[in-house]
């Protein structure tokens, strides 16, 4: 049921025509199995995978209860800088919940105090003040994710990178210290560990 | 015993004097009773035949021509006399006729086994009796002359 809904929700990203929906579904299948769809650019395909990964992180990482104001507080995924996902990210998380909390997506163009209240904060690699963002979220239960090449080097927690045509994850374990985030060993297992 | 004891035609051994009288009368009627000696028991008969006792002056060789022997007699019976006669060489050839009133089979068999020459059952009727005696006497004395 969930799977069917997912397919349905993804299909809405690409438009309303039935043919288009079918195409997207096929593309999604191919992405997951690691095959290239002939009609999509690697760029947009990687973005879509990133969106799914962002959602998937919610299941492999534990947030302390202190990161939420109350029981009704939503789970917030923030996007800082340029929004490369378009509406795709919101499509992916729509109707999903993390520990019974609805997921809300917030877009930021600059560093605001609200940025530090996100549970997951994606920082586009084009965002200039990378170091400041990392500093402002340091010690807070905010999972910082970016596709910036030196993100982990700069004490960011998770970094997306492409290897062998596949999207991979690099993690800086030290960066999570004091943040209250609990990274699942399973995630650690599949991720590349950043070593300075 | 009105004849010489040395020349006897018929020796009659019969204990019953009445029977003896009847036999002698029957023989006389046929003129056969002239040289007849009657003895009344077996013992006397043996003495006579073998020349013993009162007849010691008699010779055995002077055999009677025929002996009429009653079967049932006191002291020595007819069968014993018959046996004695047949056992002695000298007397063996003497014809012996057994006379008896018994028709019992066993007597017949016993006498024939001892070598009797003839056998006659003494009938009650006198006519038959005389007839039988006469026939026997005639036969043995006249027809069947024994060798001297």
């Amino acid at each position: 049921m969930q799977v069917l809904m997912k397919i349905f929700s993804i299909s809405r990203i690409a438009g309303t025509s039935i043919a288009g929906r079918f195409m997207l579904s096929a593309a999604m299948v191919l992405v997951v199995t690691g095959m290239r769809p002939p009609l999509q650019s690697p760029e947009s395909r990687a973005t879509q995978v990133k969106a799914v990964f962002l959602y998937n992180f919610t299941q492999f990482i534990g947030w302390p209860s202190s990161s939420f104001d109350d029981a009704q507080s939503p789970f917030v995924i923030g996007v800082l800088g340029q929004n490369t996902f378009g509406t795709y990210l919101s499509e992916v998380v729509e109707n999903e919940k993390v520990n019974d909390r609805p997921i809300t997506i917030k877009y930021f163009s600059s560093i605001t105090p609200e940025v530090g209240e996100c549970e997951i904060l994606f920082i586009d690699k084009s965002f200039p003040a990378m170091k400041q963002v990392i500093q402002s979220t340091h010690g807070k239960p905010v999972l910082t994710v970016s596709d910036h090449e030196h993100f982990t080097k700069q004490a960011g927690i998770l970094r997306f990178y492409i290897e062998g045509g596949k999207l991979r994850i690099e993690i800086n374990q030290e960066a999570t210290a004091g943040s209250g985030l609990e990274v699942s060993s399973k995630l650690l297992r599949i991720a590349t560990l950043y070593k300075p | 015993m009105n004849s010489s004891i040395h020349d006897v035609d018929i020796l009659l051994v019969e204990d019953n004097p009445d029977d003896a009288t009847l036999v002698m009368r029957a023989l006389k009627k046929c003129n056969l009773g002239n040289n007849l000696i009657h003895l009344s028991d077996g013992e006397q008969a043996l003495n006579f035949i073998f020349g013993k006792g009162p007849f010691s002056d008699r010779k055995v060789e002077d055999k009677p021509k025929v002996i009429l022997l009653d079967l049932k007699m006191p002291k020595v019976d007819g069968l014993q006399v018959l046996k004695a006669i047949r056992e002695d060489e000298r007397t063996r050839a003497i014809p012996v006729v057994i006379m008896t009133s018994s028709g019992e089979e066993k007597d017949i068999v016993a006498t024939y086994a001892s070598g009797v020459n003839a056998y006659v059952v003494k009938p009650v009727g006198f006519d038959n009796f005389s007839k039988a005696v006469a026939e026997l006497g005639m036969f043995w004395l006249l027809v069947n002359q024994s060798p001297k």
Partner: protein
Amino acid sequence: MLLRHSPIKRKIRWVILLTSAAVLLFTFSAYFVYEVVTFRQTYARQLSVLAKIVANNSTAALAFNIEEDANEILLALKAEKHILAAALYDKHGNLFTHYSQSDAAPSLPRHLPQKQGSHHFEDSNLVVLEPVTQNNNALGMLYLKSDMDAMYDRLRLYATIGSVVIALSFVVAYVLSNRLQRSISRPVHALTRTAKVVSEQKDYSVRALKSGNDEIGYLTDAFNQMLAEIQAQNERIQSFNQELELTIEKRTHDLEAVNKELEAFSYSVSHDLRAPLRSINGFSRILLEDHGHVLGEEGVQTLNTIMRNGLRMGQLIDDLLAFSRLGKQSVTRLNLDMTSIAKTVTEELKGQYGNKTEVIIKQMPQIQGDSSMLRQVMQNLVSNALKYSMKKERPVVEIGSFKEHGEHVFYVKDNGAGFNMEYYNKLFGVFQRLHNGGEFEGTGVGLALVHRIITKHNGRIWAEAKENEGATFYFSIPSTKNETMLYE
């Protein structure tokens, strides 16, 4: 049943062996079935636990599309030699990665049917489908395929153990039954042996040994009691027999003595009674011959009467002796031609009674009987017939026979004086006469003699008559198989 004629010993042994074998087999079969059922369940459970672990481990790999990691996880299944194949499907049901034990690619479905968290048996394999979830979020599906060799190995082991146990039990049961059956078969065997001695050697003094107070013990007691009873009865019978033998011996002795006396009596009768008769007759005759002329007519008649009665008494004595002699005479059976006997007898008698009688002799069969006795019978009957018909104008005597109820019946028929049937019961008695001596002479012994002879031949004698019309005398002789049939 095959065991029906085998000894009890073997029967008991087989009963024990077969019973224990059946129980063991049943128990093992039940256990075996139970094992098969529970093993499948247990194994399915074990496999789904394994599937859960693997699924749990592969969440991240699926979530973040890390094929190598997923592969690595599946490769770890190599340690489980029964896992034939494993595969991970993504949440859309597409094959993500797979592992197979052998190089030959297993036939894995490219797309999974929508079966979740289930297991089922395919051929002889067990297939488990386990959803891969992280925090209740479905990430995909794990497919595990395992052979059931483990079960078969186990079942084989059980079968081996079972066979060994059954074989051992058989040996134990055999040894035990061998030992235990003795308590039953031994007393039975002992009883049988005793019974055999009794039935074969007729020795009723033996006793079976009692082994216990069970049914066989009771049987042994009863058997011994019966033996004792038989023995006692035998002894009683024996003593009775001995007594009886003694009695018979004594009786026989007595009888012999009586017989001897009787013989002596009849001998003296024949000898001693006849001598005085002879004298009476003889001297009467002499009196008549020598002194008849002085006696006168009356005296002569008196003498004649004396002589006639003397003769008659002599005849009586002769007949009586013949009759009593017959009692001890045994029948000597020879083939006899009754026709020729009748002819001879008739020839002899005809002269005596004058030749005016017509005698018809029919053809008669050969029979088996005593020659002199049956001649006597024929003689008496024919002489009677001639005698009693003599006074008729045309006397006719017929002699013949017929067959009736397996008997030869002979008859002598005359048309003479006959007799009154009223006196029939006196006909065959000794000294019984139905006519007085003045009419027909006779001693009254003849028919009694005939009756006695026929009885000795197991035959019957009877007569039919009518006064002044004649009489028919019948006698029957049972026919024997080997006689020659001259008529029929």
